[in-house]
């Protein structure tokens, strides 16, 4: 396994937020952690990113134990829900910020930055300030900034939750393409069932700090582990694209 979480535990004061969590992920795959709010999915992400230290358990990435590494020394980057873009820098400065700490010469950083901006369709915005671009564009900047340092693992914390429905569908598709092209391993946290089913190679469904089911999306769809999972997914019908990709999930009102 490329990424391996084993027996992770985390409590805040007297509340157990993550209980004995274990799963693994292969290189180049995209995992969605799915669950309603308060199920411990963001806490799990923060432990992988290094912003929280687990009370127990271990995190292995590419054979290396990263459990006790601080975020700045982990080969892991995060796309934050609120993006966390630097408002005092231009788009390009934002994107190339992480390269500074890899000893990348300035000219080369600039070239690479422009390449990544082109990849996310923002080449013309290099000199723009953050407050001058739209929410969707900010989202892409955050993505480019996280990917440019070529991390071993990229984490995304509900990155599309601040976008409107149409844009979300578009960004979803772009992210998937980008992830395939770069062969990037990603962990994606969401509470949107459709998003998870369309994006993921593997899905982890969490509830009250525990992992309920871990499998490929279609496996979970066809064989939900229990009534909760079936109800939570609430899939009524699936619509497929001609090339066999999942296009849309129709839900039956979905009790969450």
């Amino acid at each position: 396994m490329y990424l391996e979480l084993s027996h992770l535990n985390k409590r805040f004061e007297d509340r157990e937020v993550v209980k004995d969590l274990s799963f693994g992920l292969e290189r180049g795959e995209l995992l969605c952690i799915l669950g309603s709010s308060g199920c411990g999915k963001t806490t799990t992400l923060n432990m992988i990113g290094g912003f929280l230290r687990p009370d127990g358990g271990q995190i292995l990435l590419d054979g290396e134990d990263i459990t006790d590494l601080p975020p700045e020394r982990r080969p892991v980057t995060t796309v934050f829900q609120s993006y966390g873009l630097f408002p005092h820098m231009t788009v390009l400065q934002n994107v190339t910020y992480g390269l500074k700490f890899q000893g990348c010469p300035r000219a080369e950083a600039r070239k690479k930055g422009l390449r990544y901006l082109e990849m996310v369709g923002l080449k013309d915005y290099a000199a723009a300030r953050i407050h001058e671009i739209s929410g969707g564009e900010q989202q892409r900047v955050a993505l480019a900034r996280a990917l440019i340092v070529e991390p071993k693992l990229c984490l995304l914390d509900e990155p599309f939750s601040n976008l409107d429905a149409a844009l979300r569908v578009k960004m979803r598709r772009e992210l998937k393409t980008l992830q395939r092209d770069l062969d990037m391993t990603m962990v994606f946290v969401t509470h949107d069932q459709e998003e998870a089913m369309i994006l993921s190679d593997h899905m982890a469904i969490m509830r009250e700090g525990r992992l309920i089911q871990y499998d490929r999306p279609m496996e979970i769809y066809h064989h939900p582990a229990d009534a909760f999972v079936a109800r939570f997914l609430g899939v009524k019908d699936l619509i497929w694209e001609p090339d066999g990709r999942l296009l849309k999930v129709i839900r039956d009102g979905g009790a969450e």
Partner: protein
Amino acid sequence: MNKPAFQSRGKRVSSKEALFRIGEGVDKLVLLFLLGSVCLFVLWPMTCILLRSLHLSGGDGFTLSSYVQVWTKYQSALRNSLFIGIVSALLCTLFSVSAAVFLSTRRGWMKGLCMAVLLVCMVSPPFVSSLAYIQLYGRRGWITYRLLGLSWDPYNSWGVIWMQALSFVPMNALFLIGILSKLDGGSLRAARDLGARPGAILRDVVLPLMRPGILVCLLLSFVRSLADFGTPVIIGGRSTTLAAEIYLQVVGYSDLEKSSAMNMFLLVPSIAFFFLYRALMRRSDRLTEGARGKQESLSLPLFRCGPLGWLAVAMSLLFFVMMTLQYGCIFLSGFLKSTKGVYSFTLKYWHQLWTISGSTMVRSVIYSLIVSLGGTLFAMLFAYYMERRRVPGRSLFDCLVTLPYMLPGTCFGIGYILAFNHAPLKLTGTALIVMANMMFKQLPTSTKICSASLTQVPVYLEKAARDLGGGQMAVVRDVILPGLRPAFLSCFVYNFSSSMTTAGSIIFLIDPGRQLAVFKLFDAVYTGDYALASLIASAITVIVLAVEGLVFLISWKGAARRVS
């Protein structure tokens, strides 16, 4: 058959209509009163200084002679003002940024203690730093003379610079802490995530985001230093500044043409800086907008931030040690008497305080209470009209009301003398002019507090009140004023402590028969009665803290009763 019923309904409607008309009339009158007052008490006094400095209101015709006179005669004072202003602004900003970053990254008892020190600094009267300076580092100073056995002359520019720099820190630091608390924690986490070590985060993210705020601190400190006459008069020795000269001019010779011209040298840069200040504040707001203001402390390990981090820690510790020494000295020396170098406890000055200054204290408190109530109400109404109603010339009035924030106290004081010393507006010598001056000097901050609070009152509440049949007055009474309750408290507290401790602008307006506590303090320091001065300073500080504590207690109790 239908007719009578219809008629009676028509009648009721018309009486309601009349009530509505009255409401609208009152609404217009209130607005006119607010705008008129601002013009009269801010714009007019400033205009008077300009006219007087050009001899346009004296009768002998337009001339620049006063300017020429000031320019040639006060070269060294001008140079000194500039030098002291620049150096103390730089020093003060260094202290302020350090203290703000230090406190924002700290939590627990240490932070509580430091915040308490800042609070005491905020509510203590001016001149205390000079007073403590003389007692600690003076010719017979506790530290320089008794501890180190030095014999030196402490009266020079450097003393002024240090004391000004230290005494401007609390306000700046609190301002910067406010900015830091609004910083987007996401930016910091993102930087860390991308490999930035703490030092790099401080250098690349925290400080650049604070930059407009830091520039504002520089400006404010510079203007405050320009305006400060107390420190140079008390500890400046032979090095004098323009503000000190203005004070001596007005008190000693009453040459109003000349002091107007001198004031113009302070007024023009202050107004220029005022516009710069507004631009910077807009930029600062833009850098912090959109960040969700979670009141979490800045997660930045300052001790691992390299030289910059250590500088911040060292400067803050130096600041807090000096402040603790300063206030310790002030609180102690009111109760100590020295006989042949041996100190013993005494209540002598305590008795003196109440026999000499008792009535003055009471007068100060009464004035401050009136100003606090009036100023708070004024600010609430003004903020409402500016924020929510389409007032013609809105930006102009907004600008006017904020202007006194940057005006040197001496300008604001002399402006009032010139504007209100003849009929039909002869107010000089009355209590009214003193209170009006305090109120308008404090209005910029009061209005800002109220405007900020008003943004928390959703516009649809107003719409709902009107939709349900309430007029303009009903909106103000039932929606706006209740919504501004929290602002009332902070506004009142701010106004009270400022009124109790303000000195600069009202020193020229006070009637000798109706002294205020701050000027008793100034006199005591000036005449070398340091023990009594210390005691007055402590008394003012304690009174302010007590009254504010009381106000908080009352509102807290009130809130508790309403909940139950």
